[in-house]
């Protein structure tokens, strides 16, 4: 029996995260981050958002490249469907955040992942955004995320992994808790 003790590797540098946690606890002001995006209207419901810089660790930071996102409504809304809808970007954000969390927590707990797939759905009655029924809210009634995870771990450990990733997720917090939003005209 010579199964080599291959180190668990989900491609997450856990040591860097642990070091950051320790360093930032000592210098909490460096832990203040500001994330930014800018959005330019094209035509109709189509806009293009870009993401490139953000502030953190006490200085201005740059992504490796500028990322662009086309945002639009689908054809059944009489739009041109040049991109995903804004609400789908919210789902993308939540799924990406939870999945990153699953990988990080798995690395920390020495769980080797083979595959992780999340399907995410947001239910909404559009009478709210159409202004047709004051009792229907604009946003999602509920969001459901379904993780399919293949890993060297028991079902209970995988459930704990997913629960912990929610506990430490920024986007999960943003969608489940009220957030102060200030919109102004420059």
């Amino acid at each position, binding site marked *: 029996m010579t199964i080599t003790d291959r180190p668990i590797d989900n491609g997450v540098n856990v040591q860097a995260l642990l070091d950051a946690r320790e360093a930032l606890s000592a210098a909490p002001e460096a832990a203040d981050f500001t994330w930014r995006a800018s959005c330019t209207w094209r035509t109709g419901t189509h806009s293009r958002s870009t993401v490139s810089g953000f502030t953190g660790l006490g200085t201005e930071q740059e992504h490796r490249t500028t990322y662009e996102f086309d945002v639009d409504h689908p054809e059944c809304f009489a739009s041109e469907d040049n991109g995903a809808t804004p609400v789908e970007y919210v789902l993308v954000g939540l799924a990406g955040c939870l999945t990153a969390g699953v990988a990080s927590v798995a690395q920390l707990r020495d769980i080797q992942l083979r595959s992780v797939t999340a399907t995410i759905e947001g239910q909404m009655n559009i009478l709210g955004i159409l202004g047709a029924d004051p009792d229907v809210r604009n946003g999602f009634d509920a969001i459901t995320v379904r993780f399919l995870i293949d890993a060297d771990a028991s079902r209970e450990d995988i*459930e704990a992994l997913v629960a912990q990733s929610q506990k430490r997720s920024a986007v999960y917090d943003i969608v489940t808790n009220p957030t102060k939003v200030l919109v102004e005209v420059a």
Partner: protein
Amino acid sequence: MMQTTAVVIGAGHAGLAMSRRLTERSIDHVVLERGEVANSWRTQRWPSLRLLTPNWQTRLPGQRYAGDDPDGYMAVADVVTTITGYAREIGSPVRTATTVHAVRAAPQGFEIQAADEVLCARTVVLATGAANLAATPRVADDVPAPVSSLTPLAYRDPSQLPDGGVLVVGASATGVQLAGEIHRSGHPVTLAVGEHVRLPRTYRGRDIFWWLEATGLLAERYDQIDDLTRARHLPSPQLTGTREAAMTDLNSLTAHGVRIVGRLGRIVDGLAQFSGSLPNTCALADLKMNRFLNRADEWATTSGLDGELPPPHRFAPTYVDPRTPLELDLTSGEITTVLWATGFRPDHTWLDVPVCDRTGRIRHDGGVVTDAPGLYVLGLPVLRTRASTYIHGAVTDSQAVASHLHTHLGSRRR
């Protein structure tokens, strides 16, 4: 100016345990107490409160429970009697009605400004308690005017509440106990639940604290705990000191008609908004409870106790109603009181020695305040072990701290 080798501040269980340890070592000391012995228990606890730990576990240095109900749980009045009796028995030099206004560093140690005199001591032990102040979140400022706000320190019984519904914020031992008591009295209760610790009162015929002690969990040392900050800030487990109630968890409250909602996020224009994370918060607590029960079962098997204990079993997962509201209008008149069971914190504002972190908590290494040699602290959660949170934790904590203090005195003399 009075000179003494050690000053202990606070004549509760921790201060008295320390006093006994100092006496054992013939270290000259005095215990300063703002009120009477066991003051917080006399003045800041609601009368129906009982200890979470069973009587047999409620020990102090040189003292064990000798009554006829080892499996019971002391009521507040019994705790006062026990601590007062202990003070007398060990002949502790307690000065009651002596409030400490300031502690400062001095050339020979510390200068303590008490009621109407100044004391000088080479060492000071802070044993003023972990629960002097109610830790209310900022959202408490936004409760609309007709609704009254109350903290557990001022709560006595449901008769002091105005008619109407009560929103209890926080689901620790305090939160679930008060939610249950207030709901039974006829006030409809809504309980806002954030992160919490779910445990059964008994498991396989034994008290949960028997399991926590037997498996070695309570003995886990502070310097061996992965995430000490988290361990020190964990809410108390959802337990009540009664044998009749097997569980005082969220399921039992739901069964009695208490409405469970998510963590209180904010109040805008009188509208309370709760987190949608309740299902995960409950799932985390269930997983954590089951991890401990797994550990308990493994321990029982390794210890060869499976024959004499009832078989293992698991508890139903926490039920979360899919129709759980995310909002509650506090201006509708439905809710007349908000009770903030959001935790407590020590009050060390009178400490003029720069040893606190940015959140106002004392930086210490297992009770040794390293930034101020000669200064010690006792009676805080997970101070040296997980047992430190409970009364009996003072048995080993006081021993370790006294031993360090003794060595410190010797090193300074040389």
